[in-house]
């Protein structure tokens, strides 16, 4: 899934015709105000804020271990005020699971995306800037990653090294970075011979300084847009792994909740349905935010 989502993110952005150097950097206030006027960014932002609040407040609102049995099993939603969303077949509170699951999902998604960002941005910068061998190697590696099914690859990594929060985040990050590297490389190639870079070089700036101070800031727009989609993809991947039983056994996960509810789906479908809705809302929020960011930051739409 990861390649495809990032390609979606990439397509609208990389087709920008105007060289990025000609685009005046919008002031912070300017693009933030426009972001607030974009309906998809606004809805996505609010939904995401709610999920983040859920994650942050989970230890306060539900201090107990969400994996503990706290109610009678198969309590339907809305029956008991103490357990609003009911309980699963082991008497675990579903609402508590949803709150704590938000923590786990966001944590894994953010860590894996950070890893992919570091690898992808540095790989893309180096390959695009220096070209030659570095570029050839990176292109072969990314082509390779686009060919092997990345979900299956992440699954094999986690299965072999045992699932923990760290290994899951690592596996997702390692399989997600190549598409970002390609995106960054394409952006760097556009700027590599621009007058801005030539001017910096003439002033005696080091390669590192040119890459970090001149080129990187001008590639931030597509990176930002694809980051929100990468987080969304990471959440989908994490929940898919957990659904297959490859989640951290000591942490509650939405995907795992869906998977365990599966056995009683004929009679108690709500156990499966509720955590799935949480995944859909979170991923939807991130996608909307990504769409909104792309609209707002894409200079073509400013006309």
């Amino acid at each position: 899934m990861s390649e495809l989502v990032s390609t979606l993110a990439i397509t609208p952005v990389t087709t920008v015709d105007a060289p990025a150097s000609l685009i005046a950097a919008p002031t912070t206030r300017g693009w933030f105000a426009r972001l607030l006027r974009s309906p998809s960014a606004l809805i996505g932002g609010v939904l995401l804020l709610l999920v983040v609040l859920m994650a942050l407040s989970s230890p306060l609102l539900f201090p107990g271990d969400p994996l503990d049995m706290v109610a009678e099993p198969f309590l339907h939603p809305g029956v008991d005020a103490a357990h609003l969303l009911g309980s699963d077949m082991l008497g675990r509170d579903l609402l508590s699971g949803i709150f704590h699951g938000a923590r786990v999902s966001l944590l894994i998604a953010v860590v894996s995306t950070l890893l992919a960002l570091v690898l992808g941005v540095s790989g893309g910068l180096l390959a695009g800037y220096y070209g030659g061998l570095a570029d050839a190697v990176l292109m072969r590696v990314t082509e390779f990653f686009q060919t092997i099914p990345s979900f299956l690859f992440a699954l094999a990594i986690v299965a072999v090294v045992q699932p923990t929060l760290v290994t899951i985040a690592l596996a997702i990050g390692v399989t997600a970075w190549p598409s970002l590297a390609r995106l960054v490389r394409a952006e760097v190639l556009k700027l590599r011979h621009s007058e801005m870079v030539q001017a910096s070089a003439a002033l005696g700036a080091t390669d590192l300084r040119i890459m970090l101070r001149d080129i990187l800031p001008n590639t931030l727009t597509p990176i930002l847009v694809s980051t929100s989609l990468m987080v969304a993809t990471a959440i989908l991947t994490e929940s898919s792994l957990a659904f297959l039983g490859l989640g951290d056994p000591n942490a509650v996960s939405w995907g795992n909740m869906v998977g365990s509810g599966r056995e009683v789906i004929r009679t108690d479908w709500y156990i499966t349905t509720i955590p799935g809705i949480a995944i859909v809302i979170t991923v939807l929020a991130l996608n909307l935010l990504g769409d909104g960011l792309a609209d707002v930051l894409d200079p073509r739409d400013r006309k």
Partner: protein
Amino acid sequence: MKIRNIVVRRLLQLVSVALGVTIINFFLLQLAPGDAAQVLAGEAGAATPEYMAALRAQFGLDQPLLVQFWKYILNLAHFNLGYSFRHGMPVAQLIGERVPATLLLMGASILFAVVAGATLGAIAAYRAGRIADVVISTLALVFFATPLFWIGLMLVVVFSVWLDWLPVGGMFTIEAGYTGWKYILDVARHLVLPAVTLGLFYMAVYTRLMRATMVEVRRQDFVRTAVAKGARPPRVLFAHVLRNALLPLVTMLGVQVSSIIGGAVLVETVFSWPGLGRLAFEALFQRDFNLLLGILLCSSIVVIVVNWVVDFVYTRLDPRIRFA
């Protein structure tokens, strides 16, 4: 470019990917707790020390790492992917038996996703800004955010449990023993839910893509010319707009093949579809890493081959692009 050069280049690509997966597989096996002999013997139950020693000698685990690696590659060059103790047959044979079911599922899903996605995207583009567009775009947005395994389970609840229209899982009714047309019909009934489940996500992608490109293509000069010379609307749509709007969709399809295989793992698990994905899931739980990594290798090869087909379709759609 000459046909021979093309074939050579494609084969080189296939070999290099196979080599890459092999390297990864080899080092993943090194990472597994215990050595490969323990992993391989795990399924054999209580392995005696003599048996372990024999296994180590057979796989050359008592030799330096590089020698081991060389042997691993030599084995692969003979299409020897190892042996699955759990299933009691060679991994290559196991995979070979499961590939057709996965290809059938993938084919049906892609067909559904392309046809439904292109149609919905086209409708949305023609009705841009109106109710139909809003409804279709919202649906696409939601399906794009929905995990495959969850939507599969929800479809099972609605269509199998509540309505009882379609079977819950499997590929055919085993006890019925159908043959001929009845068998095909039976498989088709079992195929509907898994194919739709796997296809919905990609349908959402194609709907969004199709809508965007259709809006773009309809503004082009050649469409205006077609309308101006008096071509009827259906002809403008099918001969001019659709053909051009389908190109990005086909490109996207090629990029997505590897992700569709990943999705197939989930869908096959939900619906007990006897394909590669289901086999990967079983291998996972039996800690049959040799089988799991063999599946990784074979699915990468499937991706390459499907991409060849996609490239071919592309040249048929756009005569400007040569088969290369």
